[in-house]
């Protein structure tokens, strides 16, 4: 029953979406009719139809012979239009919103049908929906929106690329940069020339009516259709969760081949107009490639540094922090496009450069905002792209030529496979970890074409060949997305390709990652070999001594990576604990191991510890309770500029919160405090405090909460901590102490603490 309801609700969603969209096309049709009628009545009157308005005009027409003042009196006697209908002036935003709404309803619908979304990747389903909608629109007779150059390259593509670039796993990317570059540059060049050449050969075949297609047009076609598309790759690879190496290889290739595509495209476009090609032109083409790619990266890096520098000063205006990230990145993209440089590489460079510094500077909420906005925009963009692809397929003028299309598909496949095999053979000579045959297969099979090829195809000026090219491009896109996209998941299962590691980053792995980095650098130095690690280490040191000082505000600039990782981990644990209530499990779930088990036991020493009198203890308790009270009061204030917390506080009842805090305090005191035998201040938490407090402290009535904690309170607490480990009062006291600190930590977590590490798509921070 539930299944039936669910299925019917998804169908309902789909139907509603389609109906909404078709209605939007009826309305303009209706409005245009009325507008004509109205124009027939009086001249130049803008505005939509309406019965009242029309009546008015007819009256005016009939009384045009009368005197003006009777006209005006006739006008005065009319009733005031209570309800009028004017569609035209909201037309554009209305339709845009409707399209986006349709796209999202489709997305919603697919996830409610579980079976289908397992077999068919989302991109295929969206294209099918696009085809349906396109078909309906064509049946109505309206003109469908087309995925043109401007719409695609300026509005739909940047969010996806920014999302990819901002959350790029930099470490994996840089480790494999050589391989990625070879695939992107040499691979795309090979593909372009092979496809272009072969298609020219095909066009020479007698009886195919293709003799008009010359070599340069074929090469242009080859350069358009040979580029692996990042949108399609992302859409498909996201769902199959293969290991990071393969993912970054294919994805990195799809990003970096943009430079090659841009250069080749403009090159062949120019040549086909000029007619002849000289050696100088070819040489200039090569120079152009370097200018385009390096220039794009330079633009991106400059804007990235600017963005990082700006974020240094935003500690008082946290609300607009995300906007800086978005706008600087978009400006980087557009600036690169002005000079015909590679906008995609510029955007990626901006995101990669900006991210480590911005994340150190911005608040936790801004980080979450950035993350969610990027995911949201890229999701909407992707959906719209695929739907528009379907619509444009139905709408566009087609010139179907069996020979051309079939051979295009075949040649593309063959060239991809040959290219990957050949290049891997070369690359494996230089790689430490070689690419196996399975890896090669996945890389070759994952070379999907997508909307970039389509939009570039739209720019071809020669209209006769344009239609044929577009048809072929669409066929290739459909083939790769449908056939390869649908079959890649079962193939991955069949070939038992290594999947992505699902485990979270543990502190041990982080320690050993850093240890290994230093170890390998040291060994390289001993060998006398300036290798990969040596340069990475040099860059890190440069980054630390010079760049971080300029771009990161306050004391965060000197924080080593291990410490910031540990802080993030702690923060995450705290948030997790409070958000999920007292049934939460900390990352070491099923174990009851605590610090007592790990600490070496020492013989109990006789120490002369000043014992605390009862009255002093009472005093301490009162102080602690008062602090708790004050903290909670402060959290109540709310204004758009303060951004203190918190609606969260209002939802949770007092008792539950207290219970949670007590629970967490107890657990935290086990896990993070060095227990009683040592004379140590629980200093771990100190590290968390300083940067965040600058935002948080607004009133000075409660000096205890600030960083300069009155030393005697602390000392007393720890000393009482040390007395015995077992006394009930002591445990309560320690619970209260950790209570406060954790409550502060929690409250700070909810106000403006530092960013927490991401789960899904982002990789490690740059090391």
């Amino acid at each position, binding site marked *: 029953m539930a299944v039936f309801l669910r299925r019917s609700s998804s169908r309902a969603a789909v139907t509603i979406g389609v109906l909404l969209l078709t209605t939007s096309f009826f309305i303009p049709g209706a409005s245009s009719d009325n507008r004509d009628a109205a124009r027939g009545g009086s001249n130049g009157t803008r505005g939509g139809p309406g019965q009242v308005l029309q009546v008015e005009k007819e009256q005016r027409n009939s009384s045009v012979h009368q005197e003006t003042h009777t006209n005006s009196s006739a006008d005065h006697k009319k009733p005031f239009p209570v309800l009028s209908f004017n569609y035209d002036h909201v037309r554009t935003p209305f339709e845009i919103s409707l399209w986006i709404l349709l796209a999202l309803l489709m997305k919603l619908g697919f996830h409610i049908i579980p079976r289908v979304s397992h077999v068919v990747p989302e991109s295929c389903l969206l294209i099918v929906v696009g085809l349906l909608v396109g078909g309906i629109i064509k049946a109505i007779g309206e003109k469908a929106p087309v995925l043109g150059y401007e719409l695609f390259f300026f509005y739909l593509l940047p969010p996806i690329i920014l999302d990819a670039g901002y959350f790029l796993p930099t470490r994996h990317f840089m480790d494999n940069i050589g391989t990625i570059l070879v695939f992107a540059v040499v691979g795309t060049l090979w593909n372009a020339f092979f496809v272009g050449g072969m298609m020219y050969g095909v066009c020479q075949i007698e009886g195919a009516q293709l003799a008009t297609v010359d070599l340069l047009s074929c090469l242009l076609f080859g350069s358009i259709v040979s580029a692996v598309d990042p949108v399609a790759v992302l859409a498909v690879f996201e769902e199959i969760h293969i290991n990071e190496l393969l993912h970054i290889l294919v994805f990195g290739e799809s990003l970096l081949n943009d430079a090659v595509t841009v250069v080749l495209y403009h090159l062949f476009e120019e040549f086909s107009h000029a007619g002849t090609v000289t050696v100088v032109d070819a040489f200039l083409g090569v120079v152009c490639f370097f200018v385009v790619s390096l220039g794009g990266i330079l633009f991106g890096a400059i804007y990235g540094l600017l963005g990082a520098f700006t974020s240094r000063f935003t500690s008082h205006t946290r609300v607009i922090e995300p906007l800086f990230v978005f706008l600087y990145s978009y400006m980087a993209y557009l600036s690169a496009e002005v000079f015909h440089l590679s906008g995609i590489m510029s955007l990626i460079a901006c995101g990669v450069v900006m991210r480590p510094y911005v994340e150190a500077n911005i608040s936790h909420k801004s980080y979450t905002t950035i993350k969610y906005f990027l995911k949201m925009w890229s999701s909407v963009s992707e959906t719209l792209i695929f739907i528009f692809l379907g619509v444009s397929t139905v709408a566009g003028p087609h010139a179907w030529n069996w020979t051309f299309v079939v051979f295009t598909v075949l040649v593309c496949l063959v060239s991809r496979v040959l290219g990957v095999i050949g290049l891997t053979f070369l690359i494996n000579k230089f790689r*430490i*970890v*070689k690419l196996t045959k399975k890896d090669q297969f996945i890389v070759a099979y994952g070379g999907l074409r997508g909307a970039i090829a389509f939009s570039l195809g739209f720019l071809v000026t020669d209209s006769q060949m344009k239609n044929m090219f577009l048809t072929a491009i669409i066929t290739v896109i459909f083939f790769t997305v449908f056939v390869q996209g649908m079959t890649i998941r079962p193939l991955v299962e069949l070939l038992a390709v290594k999947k992505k*590691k699902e*485990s979270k980053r*543990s*502190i*041990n*792995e982080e*320690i*050993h990652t*850093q*240890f*290994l980095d*230093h*170890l*390998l*650098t*040291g*060994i390289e*130095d*001993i*060998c*006398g*070999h*300036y*290798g*990969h*690690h*040596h340069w990475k280490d040099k860059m890190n*040191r440069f980054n630390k001594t010079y760049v971080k000082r300029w771009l990161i505000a306050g004391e965060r600039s*000197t*924080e*080593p990576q*291990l*410490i910031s990782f*540990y802080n993030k*981990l702690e923060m995450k644990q705290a948030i997790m604990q409070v958000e999920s209530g007292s049934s939460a499990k900390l*990352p*070491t779930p*099923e*174990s*009851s*191991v*605590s*610090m*007592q*088990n*790990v*600490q*070496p*036991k020492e013989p109990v020493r006789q120490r002369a510890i000043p014992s605390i009198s009862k009255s002093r203890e009472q005093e301490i308790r009162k102080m602690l309770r008062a602090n708790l009270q004050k903290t909670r009061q402060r959290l109540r204030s709310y204004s758009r500029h303060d951004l203190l917390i918190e609606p969260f506080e209002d939802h949770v009842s007092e008792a539950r919160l207290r219970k949670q805090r007590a629970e967490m305090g107890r657990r935290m005191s086990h*896990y*993070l405090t*060095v227990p009683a035998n040592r004379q*140590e201040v629980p*200093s*771990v938490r*100190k*590290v968390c405090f300083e940067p965040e407090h600058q935002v948080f402290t607004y009133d000075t009535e409660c000096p205890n909460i600030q960083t300069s904690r009155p030393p005697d309170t602390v000392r007393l607490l720890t000393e009482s901590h040390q007395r015995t480990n077992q006394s009930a009062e002591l445990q309560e006291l320690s619970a209260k102490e950790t209570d406060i600190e954790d409550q502060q930590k929690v409250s700070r977590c909810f106000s403006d603490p530092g960013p927490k590490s991401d789960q899904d798509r982002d990789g490690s921070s740059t090391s």
Partner: protein
Amino acid sequence: MGALQSLPAQPEYIDLAQKTGFSFEQIAILHKRFKQLSRDEETLRRENFSQIPDLACNPIRTQIIEAFFDKRNYHQNDVGMVEEIGFKEFLVVMSHFRPPSHRMTEEQRENVRTEKLRFLFNMHDTDNDGTITLEEYRHVVEELLSRSGALGKETAKGIADAAMLEVASISVGHMEPDEFYEGITFEHFLKLLKGFEIESRMNIRFLNMDTSTLCK
């Protein structure tokens, strides 16, 4: 480059190549470097290592240097430290950083991984009792953070404690409050870094190229 190619395959090279898996060119290059570091003497001492300028800013240089003089890394089932090493020991220690060959079976790959992890374990376990105690682990983290001054020292303790806790939870799971976790044994260490893919990460590129002219 020309001088190197005309070197005949000396008999001791053959023996070394068999033992460590390096090729003759790689052994010749490393021998040249060895001679450069030891100032043409037969053995290397700790002072020779300390004179490498790039190594001076490495936070764990002491441990790296000690690893060369640690008999456990010579594959001879011996323990203890030595004062000076010959070329053979130098090469054996270096061989821990060779990448696994392309055509290895799963079992051989497993052996390579165990060997590399054993090297790391020996680096941490300085008193050679077979376990990495909390103190030793703290020392490791402190060294890693040694460039951050006083702030690093206290946090290092916290980090090492949390890490140790994690190891205990992963390896032993459930412990009574009065049980005691002695330290990380080698089996626990293997289990801990199982997903670390060390055989692909702990590698140096020993190219067949004469690199001794590039740096001191």
